[in-house]
């Protein structure tokens, strides 16, 4: 079985916009969601900025009951539930049923879950108060917390799980859902990923010096993908969600279709040949892109736009070089490319899904958002591709076939190919 798979719903909780209309407006206007965070300063972080979705207490109550919010302290689950439920509503899938929805599954990834809740629990345990942890310390801190919460909210009765592959998590969830539907084992899959915010998630990145420390007074300028002055990624958080559906089911329901998932590929560089825990094996990255094209049945020349991983580190030029090699395209012949990270930072496990939502919105509405904070394009990148291919102002243009790639710690790679429907 090899069925066609389309996207029928989107949801997002991003640092620069919660909900699709706000997020769309933000990316069209190059609005940054990066801000100064006092708590990081108080804790002696070098990088005192970050990206956190703005969610009011009223907004929380649109999704959660008072009881669910009691002792609730997992920002990742909050963001994931908002993005996931929004995507299902957008797709017009009703979840108010008594029977499980046997054809609806959930693959919602995370890096960790509920670190703030976990910290509370650790402090209580260390104080000899294990008996006072409460009933939700497990569900908020288990890695699959987000898929379990969404499962309860929706009644999904197909495959309900959480995947985890560092910064490749979000893109990976989309391919897992795609394969499930393509193989005829589900009709609808809610795919996405989420990441907690805060010092306990971001601290280790501060310690390994991959985040910028020079922009605490000018946070919106901090994250500079492809710039000559890129100094690391602003830490981010949030969640993105996509409803994938068999074309058959989407047409039967008369659903809006944002685009088609043509296919993709996942691989690993084996932490060999230049690859390591933290660096990619370039050969593997190129293979992943080539295999994604092959699996999708498209030629490299057909790619109109790339939504890059591009983390605003010294590795950006290497990523561009890998795209050039894999596609056999350079200079003026290279597709448009940008990175959302300039606006939202690196949302870690959530990056792939939030960025995929931004990619699908560009495909559907026909534009390429500005790659902000790149007035000073890196000279190594300028040697490889024409500067016009990296829009510094939003471009309105029809896109037909686009690629989204994410690369993660552990030397893992994902590339997904989308097509206009």
């Amino acid at each position: 079985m090899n069925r066609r798979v389309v996207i029928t719903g989107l949801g997002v909780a991003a640092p620069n916009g919660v909900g699709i209309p706000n997020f769309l407006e933000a990316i069209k206007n190059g609005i940054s969601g990066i801000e100064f965070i006092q708590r990081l300063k108080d804790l002696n972080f070098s990088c005192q900025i970050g990206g956190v979705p703005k969610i009011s207490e009223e907004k929380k109550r649109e999704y959660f009951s008072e009881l669910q919010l009691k002792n609730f302290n997992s920002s990742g689950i909050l963001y994931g539930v908002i993005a996931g439920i929004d995507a299902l509503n957008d797709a017009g899938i009703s979840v108010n049923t008594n029977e499980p929805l046997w054809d609806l599954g959930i693959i919602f990834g995370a890096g960790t879950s509920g670190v703030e809740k976990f910290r509370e629990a650790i402090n209580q345990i260390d104080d000899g108060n294990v008996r006072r942890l409460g009933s939700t310390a497990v569900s908020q801190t288990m890695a699959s917390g987000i898929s379990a919460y969404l499962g309860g909210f929706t009644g999904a009765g197909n495959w309900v799980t959480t995947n985890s592959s560092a910064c490749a998590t979000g893109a990976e969830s989309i391919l897992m859902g795609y394969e499930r539907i393509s193989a005829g084992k589900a009709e609808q899959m809610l795919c996405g990923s989420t990441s907690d915010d805060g010092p306990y998630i971001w601290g280790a990145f501060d310690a390994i010096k991959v985040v910028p420390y020079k922009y605490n007074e000018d946070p919106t300028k901090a994250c500079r993908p492809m710039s000559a002055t890129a100094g690391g990624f602003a830490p981010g958080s949030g969640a993105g969600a996509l409803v994938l559906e068999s074309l058959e089911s989407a047409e039967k329901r008369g659903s809006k279709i944002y685009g088609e998932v043509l296919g993709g590929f996942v691989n690993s560089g084996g932490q060999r040949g230049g690859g390591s825990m933290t660096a990619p094996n370039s050969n593997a990255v190129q293979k992943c892109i080539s295999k994604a094209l092959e699996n999708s049945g498209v030629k490299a020349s057909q790619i109109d736009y790339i939504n890059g991983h591009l983390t605003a580190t010294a590795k950006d030029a290497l990523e561009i070089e890998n795209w050039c090699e894999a596609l056999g395209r350079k200079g003026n012949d290279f597709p448009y490319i940008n990175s959302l990270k300039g606006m939202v930072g690196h949302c870690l496990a959530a990056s792939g899904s939030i960025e995929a939502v931004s990619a699908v919105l560009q495909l559907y509405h026909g534009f390429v958002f500005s790659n902000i904070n790149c007035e000073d394009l890196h000279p190594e990148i300028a040697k490889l591709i024409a500067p016009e291919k990296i829009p510094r102002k939003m471009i309105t243009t029809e896109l037909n076939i686009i690629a989204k790639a994410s690369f993660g710690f552990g030397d893992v790679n994902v590339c997904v190919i989308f097509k206009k429907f």
Partner: protein
Amino acid sequence: MDQDTIYDKLQPIIKLYLPEDVDATTINRDSDLTRELNINSAHLVDIVLDIEDAFEIEFKNNDMEQLRTVNDTIAIIQQKISEKGE
């Protein structure tokens, strides 16, 4: 503390844990917490923690085992308060 005063303080604690389809007016002193009020058994743990905070007492594992109805709960609370006073 008399039983009526305890009940007045206990009722809002229980109310928070009622499922959406159970009305707060159905709570009475004979109600079985899990069977009649349909409270998720995992939440009994949370109810006990809230009671401990509200009445400044501490439940033991065997107190938990005796917890079936609202009246059971009131009796345990009353006993704990009087033990504390001694």
